[in-house]
């Protein structure tokens, strides 16, 4: 039995859409797209929840156009509410039955939210954590947003003839992507950094609970940095600032690992720079890596001697997409200090001061889809 899911993230001036089919334990990516909103929309997009109807209508039209052109499924559509409109609250509760738990969380949310409960929508995630008594505590992260923002988003999609199945947050997308890839092996205390086209998101996770998150907006690494060293330095500095702020007044275990996703996640050089600057080991969290791992898993399964592994979920590209992605794969391009774009040399080596990101390269586009894909993973 298969189910098709589509995830949309309206990220500042970009609309990211990815469609995948879940068949047993395999996720098959059918289609994805990265579209830049037109200029009229952009002006309203950064604040779309508060924008006038004209801005919303433009985004609606854009979504409708993309869905029509690229034939994305409208069956199970997930999206995210802009992080600016979401408030998160962390608290702990003892293990209690589900109906009582809901009431207890509602009570906590009422206490913590500056808005009356009738004006907000909320939901929560939780993880079980054993305590010293041998019992369990629930480490809860509650997410609240004003109801009007949620309704605006519903209406925005309804205008594009799309009935939303759920509204989540980009943080949750990244968190679930990380859980999907690493499970409990991710570590006790780690940091996820998603380098986006014009923003960076940093999440700190402790004992599987999202303990801290930060959005760095309007940072446009691609346009504002001259080379990968500079990009690495900026990202490293932002991580350092975040970590310093996070640790201020706290004495908890050090951050063990940084998981890097987004536009430069496949760059080994960027990983090294960040690792050197922060003294924390860096790992990649990317759909391309997942595809490679899935291929490895397939190879393993054919090997009778290594057939003892539990069946892991696989990520694949649909045959149609596979043909398209390899047909359209462009050679990586170097963007020099001058901003000129030239083809890479025949020896295929990437120069140390180049930024290997190409907005037309489907592989590079796929790399920025992880938060959206994270919304689908585990559904």
């Amino acid at each position, binding site marked *: 039995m298969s189910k098709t899911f589509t995830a949309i993230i309206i990220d500042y001036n970009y609309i990211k859409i990815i469609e995948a089919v879940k068949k047993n334990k395999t996720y098959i990516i059918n289609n994805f797209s990265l579209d830049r909103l037109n200029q009229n929309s952009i002006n309203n997009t950064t604040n779309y929840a508060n924008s006038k109807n004209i801005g919303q209508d433009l985004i609606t039209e854009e979504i409708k156009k993309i869905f029509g052109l690229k034939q994305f499924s409208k069956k199970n559509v997930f999206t995210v*509410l802009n992080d600016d409109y*979401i408030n998160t609250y962390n608290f702990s509760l003892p293990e209690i039955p589900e109906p009582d738990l809901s009431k207890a969380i509602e009570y906590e949310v009422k206490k913590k939210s500056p808005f009356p409960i009738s004006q907000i*929508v*909320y*939901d*929560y*995630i*939780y*993880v*079980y954590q*054993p305590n010293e008594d*041998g019992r*369990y505590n629930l480490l809860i992260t509650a*997410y609240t*947003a004003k*109801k009007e923002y*949620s*309704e605006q988003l*519903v209406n925005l999609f309804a205008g594009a003839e799309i009935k*939303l*199945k*759920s*509204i*989540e*947050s980009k943080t*949750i997308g990244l*968190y*679930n992507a990380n*859980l999907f890839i690493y499970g409990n092996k991710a570590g006790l205390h780690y940091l996820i950094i998603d380098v986006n086209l014009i923003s960076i998101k940093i999440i700190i996770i402790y004992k*599987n609970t999202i303990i801290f998150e930060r959005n760095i907006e309007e940072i446009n690494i691609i346009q504002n940095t001259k080379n990968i060293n500079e990009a690495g330095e900026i990202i490293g500095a932002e991580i350092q600032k975040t970590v310093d702020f996070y640790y201020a007044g706290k004495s908890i275990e050090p951050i063990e690992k940084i998981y890097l996703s987004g536009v430069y996640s496949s760059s080994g050089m960027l990983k090294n720079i960040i690792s050197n600057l922060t003294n924390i080991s860096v790992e990649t969290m990317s759909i391309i890596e997942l595809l490679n791992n899935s291929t490895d898993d397939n190879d393993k399964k054919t090997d009778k001697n290594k057939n003892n592994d539990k069946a892991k979920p696989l990520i694949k590209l649909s045959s149609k997409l596979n043909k398209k992605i390899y047909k359209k794969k462009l050679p990586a391009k170097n963007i020099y200090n001058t901003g000129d774009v030239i083809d890479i040399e025949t020896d295929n080596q990437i120069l140390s001061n180049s930024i290997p990101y190409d907005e037309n390269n489907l592989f590079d586009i796929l790399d920025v889809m992880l938060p959206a894909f994270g919304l689908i993973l*585990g*559904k």
Partner: protein
Amino acid sequence: MAKSLLKNKKNKTRINLLPLSDKQNIAKRNKAIFYLIVLICYIFILAGYDYLIYNDINNKRVVIFNLNQKLEIIKNNNIIYTTIHKAVLNKEKIETSLKNDSSIVNSLKSLKTKEYKKFIEIIKFPMPKDIWLNSLSSNNGNFLINGNSISFSGISVYIKNLKKMKIFKKIYLSGIEKKIKKGNNYYTFNLECKF
């Protein structure tokens, strides 16, 4: 131990910030889909069950039809058997009756032989001169003698003579008639003789 217990605990890792009304609509739709699926399954099960019963009935009908055919064959066989049995019985009866008949025939034969002997004796026996016989016949064990005589006395003598032979227990003169032929008078008589 704690780790294995922890494995059984399912964390919640997703949120849905849709307005409550939309969530409720989705829940209602899912519920409706669930009931629809249950209904479809129920209909399928019923249809399947009906189909099985229909097949079963059809199979039983075929079995009954075959049994009926066998029964017909058995009945026919039984009729043939009864007929044969009757025929055998008839044959036995016929055989018995034939035996009886043959014994009767035999007895008749023997009787006829005796009668012939008696006829011969009667014929051989010297008759008075004025007596001549027309016919000798037997009826139900009786002898009928038809003869002619010129005189009554001749008939009387002939009866006495027959009595003397002691062949018959009784001799009756059942009829006498006077006849004239070419101017000559004579008497025709009938004698009934019982053994």
